């Protein structure tokens, strides 16, 4: 069969499964557990996945997936509905726009780009919270969440490595 190489990537493999992993990981980290008096960090597990989806290929389902993950986080964490959906969609859209520019860059540069997209998402969250509550969130807490999320880039890298060349139309 000559059409085997051009077969499109099954959405459940690169969209469905990572999304379920994000939901599960976020839920586990929302458990009320303390170790030596310290609570677990609260990284945004959805961000490396949203970043990777934008890099892998344009898709009509991916933005919907990002929105679903965002609304799920809102329900889990108790933030206003739509808050994380918007915060995740903003870096997704920008990375999707500069996708061709990102192609072929080394891992460190990609990590830097991921860091920028994380900063954008958290910055948007900061702004929305400030507008909503008329109160600036604590910079130290914001910094901790940023750090906890930035270190998750290897997950995004693995996802990109696995699926970047899976669809020959977008090589």
């Amino acid at each position, binding site marked *: 069969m000559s059409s085997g190489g051009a077969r499109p990537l099954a959405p459940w493999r690169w969209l469905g499964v990572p999304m379920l992993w994000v939901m599960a990981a976020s839920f586990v980290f929302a458990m009320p557990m303390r170790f030596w008096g310290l609570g677990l960090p609260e990284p945004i597990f959805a961000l490396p996945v949203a970043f990777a989806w934008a890099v892998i290929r344009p898709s009509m389902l991916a933005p919907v997936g990002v929105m679903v993950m965002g609304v799920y986080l809102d329900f889990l964490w108790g933030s206003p509905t739509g*808050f994380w959906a918007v915060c995740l969609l903003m870096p997704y859209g920008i990375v999707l726009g500069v996708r061709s520019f990102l192609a072929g860059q080394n891992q460190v540069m990609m990590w830097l780009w991921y860091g920028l997209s994380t900063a954008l998402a958290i910055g948007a969250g900061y702004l929305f919270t400030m507008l909503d*509550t008329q109160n600036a969130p604590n910079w130290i807490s914001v910094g901790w969440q940023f750090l906890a999320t930035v270190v998750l880039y290897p997950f995004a890298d693995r996802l990109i490595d696995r699926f970047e060349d899976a669809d020959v139309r977008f090589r």
Partner: protein
Amino acid sequence: MSLRDNPLGELRVPLTWTAGIVFIVVLIASVAILLSDRREAFDTDAYGNPRTLSDKVMAPVGSALSTPGRLTGEGVEGVRGYFFAVSENRRLRAELENMRQWRDVAVALRDTNERYRTILGLKTDPPIPMATARIVTDSRGPFANSRLANAGTEKGIKPGNPVMSENGLVGRIVGATEGVSRVLLLTDAASRTPVMVDRTNSRAILTGDGGPNPKLEYLRGQDPVKSGDRILTSGDGGVFPRGLPVGVAVKGLDGRWRVVLASDKAAVDYVRILLFEDFTQVADAKKLEHTIAPPPTPGASTLPPPVPETAAPKPAAPAGATSATVAAPAAGAAPVTPAPKTTPPAQPAAKAATPQPKATTPAPKAAATPAPKTVTPAPKTTTPAPKAPAPKTTQPAGTPP
């Protein structure tokens, strides 16, 4: 027929453009959802059905997932208790010794308090019923700090109920449904709690910012707080009862006054939800406005003699006024309305109660404080009478100053 033979087989959808259009549509939809969120209302209707449903699903899952961690923690505590039993016993003995002294002080203070209440005729708050719940999920980010508790409307929990751990105030309920309720923590950026400094009685608003130590805002006066001051709920606004322990004041790195929360002393796993309802929630203000007060009981000894309606401007007369009629303008209750209709049943009752302990005052201190209070009304009416009630009552009469 193969795909190539189909006349539409060569039609290729520009995926990049369609993906971009879908992205914009989804972004607009998300922004619309965000703008339509009414979380700030914090009532059951605004909490919304999807949120209620998700809480209902998440609570049992969270409860099941947190069980291993909880059991491990309890096991570790058990082992630690076994190995450190002797030192723990010593510590507890010392603490007990200290607490016994405090108990004696507390008993004495309670006795004094009860006496004061009797003297002053104070109406104390009724005891508040409570419901116990376990925390099943916890969000700790900078933008949202809330927890799910595994007890809901079946236990009478409502939005607004205060939530406490064994150490202090944790937050308040913002959404409740069958079997689960969401607690907005004091550290959430949307949380505002009226508090007071125990030492100076100064009021402030405790404002969360997503960090571990919420800020004390709107502090007034000179040096209203210093490091180490205990912070309690003030009860202002009626959301929280007065006097719940909140934490200790500290100066933050940013130069602001912040509070180290008392509830942070230990992990918050079990909480007490106070089924507190302020009178402002219980009472229907509009209905009360239209309620006609019942007529006074004839022959009751505490009631003043009925005053005819035409005698309304009578309070202007300073000397002839009895002590009971003076009490009403002094309290600012109703100088215009006739006495028997509104507050007089309460006023004379308090009046009648106050002088009694004055004669039989057992403790010199207790007698010393209420005595001036009960005595002062009399001079007010006789000598400086034109001072307080005069502007209100005499102006219509047109009496010269």
